[in-house]
């Protein structure tokens, strides 16, 4: 029953559409929305308790207190005060209840002060004869409105209010010249006004806490299962690709061994180069669950390789969780350049907690620039983009710094 319950419950965002190639879609960094799921469950559970509290308070006020007040209106010391106070509390209680159910409760302490003032006024106005009857409606009703007023606060607040109510009642009882029977009655009434509201208040807090805990445990379980699935899929993918690469490499080696392929033949050399580059990339993949950025780059590398470009992809470190926008700015300019590369390509990623640098180097050649920003240095938000060609190599680099 803390403040975050009042926030609207978010559902998790729809997962990103899988990118081009057959690398398993990696785990997204845990989003704040996903973490809010247990809070949403707690929120739903808390809402039930609020409805119950509002219904009890208003039903008691209307169904029990009102007939008694009306029946005894002639016997009050100041009937107008008792009736006016009833109407005031009815209106205020209704507003407070509606606001509580809407998730934007009235400020608790001004409301509590108002209720305490009403309490004192009604005790004073009820008169000695109506002190312990149902017509002195503050006995039965006010405790529930205290609950509505301080919903979501600590239980000590409620106990303080009820204690104030008990003191006011004691002053009234003693003021009217209490007999021992009155004191006994007083103790019974105070017990009655305390026990139920406190029980409901504490019970709902505990239930919400349990619901939140259970939801968190279940969310953690789901996350773990999802991660395990992703890891399993990644492993399966890698196994499949290894089988594919092994058979390609095996064929070249077999052809070389049987003399069907000539090591001097540029085409054979090219096949060897491709097979070796693929094997190296597979060996270099050390992450259990692929990082989204590496996943994107690998997919691009696979695509380029399928069109016959030998490509080295070397990654150092694991990128920290990056916003989608940053990831896009890091990867997109390079994947564009990669699609245009000829000869060979070297794609590197160096990651630290505060910096990620992605670089693509390909041999320079005559012809127009690759698709992507023009040569030079550009700052695209938090990502710096650098592109140059020196007659020897074409070099594109994107760099994010925290």
């Amino acid at each position: 029953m803390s403040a975050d319950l009042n926030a609207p419950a978010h559902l998790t965002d729809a997962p990103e559409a899988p990118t081009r190639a057959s690398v398993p879609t990696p785990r997204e960094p845990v989003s704040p929305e996903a973490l809010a799921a247990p809070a949403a469950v707690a929120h739903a559970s808390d809402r039930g308790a609020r409805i119950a509290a509002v219904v009890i308070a208003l039903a008691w006020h209307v169904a029990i207190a009102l007939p008694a007040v009306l029946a005894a209106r002639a016997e009050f010391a100041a009937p107008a005060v008792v009736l006016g106070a009833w109407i005031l509390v009815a209106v205020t209680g209704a507003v407070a209840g509606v606001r509580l159910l809407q998730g934007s409760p009235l400020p608790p302490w001004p409301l509590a002060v108002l209720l305490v003032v009403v309490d004192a006024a009604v005790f004073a106005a009820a008169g000695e004869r109506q002190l312990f009857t149902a017509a002195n409606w503050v006995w039965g009703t006010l405790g529930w409105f205290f609950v509505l007023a301080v919903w979501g606060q600590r239980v000590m607040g409620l106990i303080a209010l009820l204690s104030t109510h008990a003191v006011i009642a004691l002053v009234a009882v003693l003021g009217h010249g209490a007999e021992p029977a009155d004191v006994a009655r007083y103790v019974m009434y105070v017990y009655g006004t305390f026990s139920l509201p406190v029980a409901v208040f504490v019970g709902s807090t505990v239930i919400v806490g349990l619901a939140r805990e259970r939801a968190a445990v279940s969310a953690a379980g789901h996350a773990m299962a999802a991660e395990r699935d992703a890891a399993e899929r990644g492993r399966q993918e890698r196994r499949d690709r290894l089988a594919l690469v092994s058979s390609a490499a095996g064929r070249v080696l077999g052809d070389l061994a049987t003399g069907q392929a000539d090591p001097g033949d540029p085409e054979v050399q090219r096949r060897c180069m491709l097979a070796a580059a693929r094997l190296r990339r597979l060996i270099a993949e050390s992450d259990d669950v692929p990082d989204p950025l590496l996943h994107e780059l690998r997919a691009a590398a696979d695509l380029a390789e399928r069109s016959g470009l030998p490509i080295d992809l070397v990654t150092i470190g694991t990128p920290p969780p990056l916003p989608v926008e940053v990831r896009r700015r890091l990867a997109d300019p390079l994947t564009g350049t990669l699609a245009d590369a000829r000869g060979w390509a070297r794609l590197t990623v160096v990651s630290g907690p505060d910096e990620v640098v992605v670089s693509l180097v390909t041999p320079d050649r005559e012809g127009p620039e690759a698709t992507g920003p023009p040569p030079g240095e550009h700052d695209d938000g938090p990502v710096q983009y650098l592109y140059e060609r020196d007659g020897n190599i074409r070099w594109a680099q994107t760099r994010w710094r925290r």
Partner: protein
Amino acid sequence: MGADPMAAVSGDRPIGVAIVDDHPVVVEGVRAWLATEPRLTVLATGDDPDEVLRAAPEADVVLLDLRLHGRMALDKLAELSATGRRVVVYSEHTDPQTMLAALDAGAVAFLAKHEGREHCVETVLAAASDRPYVPPTLAGAMVGDPRPDRPMLSDKEREALLLWFQSMSKASVARRMQISEHTVKQYVDRARIKYTRAGRPAATKAALLARAIEDGLVRPEEIGIYRSQATHDRPTP
């Protein structure tokens, strides 16, 4: 490309190399690479470091495959380095942790098997004269070193390592950083020398550092290694 690595090698005697690998085809391949460089001669080859070094105790440089008969030979590497053997590790295991662990154990250099002939010859030549040579793959491991006790590199040293790792061309790095190729190599080598501080002390590390100071590549106070090693060596009470 900086000072000629051969400058300090005395006499006309070619540099003796021992090759330790459990794949004969790799041994033959490396032998063929080294044969293109007249200053190098392969003295012995085999799949057991002890046997190879018994056959050629005078070898100046040992090229060691890190994975022998299915086991990582890091212990053997540390043992050889401690006795002052200049070991160049070459391996297909190029994950940064393995490379940094090899440097920590005292390897003079780490070479990825796919890095090719030129890097191999350069590395062996540099190792023979206790000079650093950082191939691009090793530069990547150093620039991405996540360990909290990693050596403190200057911004320029980090940038030179990073760009060298990315482009594999010192000329391109020089153009990008607007400095000379010689300065690029100095930044990269200085970063490597700072790594002589990491891990346990070894004779090879001391030799690398001493030569770097002699060459004016670093000043002792930039490294702080003397005090640090003394602390290391002092037996704990």
